[in-house]
């Protein structure tokens, strides 16, 4: 069976890519305003009515691309965090990393900054601090490898992050508070080509770095002692990859707010589909993560159009039952 793995992964990859393209076409055609697929392609080419061109090219296209990038980044981040912690339940949202990024972003927003560079930078810093806090908490409890302790530490840090945000916003005018709360529920609604470029750059650099180090994740998966025996500085490698994964999650928070559970669900699906090594698993995860979030965003803006649902709520509705299922399996084993 083993020699067939790569080819079945290739099939999954091709299938995923085809589905992603179909989902993107569907996403471009459907929304508050509905277009026939031929009108949609004409608008992309710039030959439809000016309104259709504006809606498809300037409003919908950046949104679809951003959703795909954020989905891919979250899935890869989840894959990396699960690899470094050797724990299939790790993911940036549950580990409080996204919450930390949100604290950084909301604090600079409360101070009046609106430049993307500031918000992204603050999100990175917040994610790094949360990462340190979570690992420190787990370490202090003396049970670093324990699933329950890690998730407990993450939930605690996430709750703390929430509290910090609410305190930071206590004196802000109500419309700014509502803006921050909306953003804490996740949304791709404010996508611009600028935010697409920034997220793409982060995915290229940080996601690329994770893929580059995928072999290290494979070695870590063997266990601490075998990895050390193979000459890998386990702690250092795990720390580096954890930070890179956290920063990738922070980049998504800066672009689209808090979106949970994508990083949990997708790598597990990729593994269930037969991805054994991290490089293949991360590629498949990126593809499926993009697919999942493009579809989730399509739901978010069509179910109750012209009103929108928060993207983070939709991913949580999908992710929480999945998490419970996975938790049962991991405690049973």
């Amino acid at each position, binding site marked *: 069976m083993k020699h067939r793995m790569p080819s079945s992964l290739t099939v999954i990859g091709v299938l995923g890519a085809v589905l992603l393209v179909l989902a993107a076409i569907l996403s471009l055609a459907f929304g508050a*305003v509905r277009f026939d697929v031929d009108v949609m392609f004409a608008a992309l080419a710039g030959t439809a009515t000016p309104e259709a061109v*504006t809606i498809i090219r*300037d409003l*919908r296209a950046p949104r679809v691309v951003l959703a795909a990038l954020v989905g891919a980044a979250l899935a890869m981040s989840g894959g990396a965090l699960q690899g470094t912690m050797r724990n299939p339940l790790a993911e940036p949202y549950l580990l409080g990393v996204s919450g930390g990024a949100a604290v950084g972003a909301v604090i600079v927003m409360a101070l009046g900054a609106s430049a993307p560079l500031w918000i992204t930078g603050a999100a990175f810093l917040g994610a790094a601090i949360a990462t340190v806090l979570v690992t420190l908490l787990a370490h202090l409890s003396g049970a670093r490898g324990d699933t329950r302790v890690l998730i407990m530490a993450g939930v605690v840090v996430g709750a703390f992050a929430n509290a910090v945000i609410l305190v930071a916003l206590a004196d802000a005018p*109500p*419309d*700014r*508070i509502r803006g921050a709360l909306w953003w804490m529920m996740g949304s791709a609604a404010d996508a611009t080509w600028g935010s697409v470029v920034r997220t793409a750059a982060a995915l290229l650099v940080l996601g690329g770095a994770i893929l580059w180090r995928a072999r290290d994740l494979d070695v870590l998966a063997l266990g601490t002692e075998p990895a050390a025996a193979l000459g890998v500085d386990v702690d250092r490698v795990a720390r580096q990859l954890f930070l890179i994964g956290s920063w990738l999650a922070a980049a998504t928070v800066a672009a689209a707010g808090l979106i949970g559970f994508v990083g949990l669900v997708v790598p597990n699906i990729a593994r269930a589909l037969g991805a054994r090594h991290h490089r293949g698993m991360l590629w498949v995860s990126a593809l499926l993560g993009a697919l999942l979030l493009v579809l989730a965003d399509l739901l978010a803006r069509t179910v109750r159009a*012209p*009103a929108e649902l928060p993207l983070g709520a939709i991913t949580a509705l999908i992710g929480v039952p999945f998490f419970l299922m996975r938790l049962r399996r991991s405690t049973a084993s």
Partner: protein
Amino acid sequence: MFPHPRLARHILRLRLVGLTAVTVAVLAACTGSTADAPRPVNAAPSSVAGDTDDFGMPVPTDARYAARVVSLNPTTTELLFALGVDSLLVGRSRWDTFPRAAQRVPAVGDGIRPNVEAIVAVRPTLVLVYATPENRAAVEALARAGIRTMALRVDRLEQWHQMVQRLGIALGVEATAGLVRDSVQRTLDRVRAATASLTERPRVVWPVWDTPPMVIGAGSYLDELLTIAGATNVFHDRAEPSLTVSMEEIVRRAPDRVIVSAQQAAAFRTRPGWQALPAVREGRFVMENPDLTGRPSVTMGMAAVQLAKALHPQLADRLP
């Protein structure tokens, strides 16, 4: 909550859009923050070249963009009808339901964080939005689509006058705008004159939400209407248009009377928290009409008349 939460929320929502744009009061509730302070108003009506809207964008100095208008704010939507240019309207927010005829204009979704796609689809030349930071992204997206916007915020009477004048110019009905302003102002002046001689001005509180208690502050046109109608708002020292306060603070300020709509009165009577307030326990309510007071609008003159009659029945024959 009120016994008829849907209607109560709807009315409150309309009013809050006019005040601080709190579409979901629950969100404000869970943060427990105070409302924002009113921005200083230009005393002299400014409509010359160089004038800007509340997002700092230049406002139109003629009716060049008046062909197809989307209005996403109950206040501006109602005003377009009052100015007789409702035929220009090609879209409104789903909360803009006054006057009744506005409901025949297609709704394009919410007025805060509006759906830009739905707006672009009705091919507007001018979009009127409520000036809140949450609408900035939409305004920027509309600008990229080549659509002109005016972001306006009305909390106080003076801002309303300024808005009427700006829209009169932008929609090519400056003379009508002048008439509308004058007529409202004349009614308000007559009410003010009738209440000027009062020796006793009741101290009142005007709650706009019951849990947590949200009340009107000095930043709102409703505070101004109270003063004109011969009452004193116990929260007049607070600059916000509306603010979340503790029940203790309301009790401490000991208002003589509570301003409520007929529909709210029953709810306040039975609501345990509000029983702490003697004015509520003893049923000292002043009935207001949400149809008149719900938004800063052409009905403000009549709202002042109605409030003055409810507060001071003895003045009825001296009021318009």
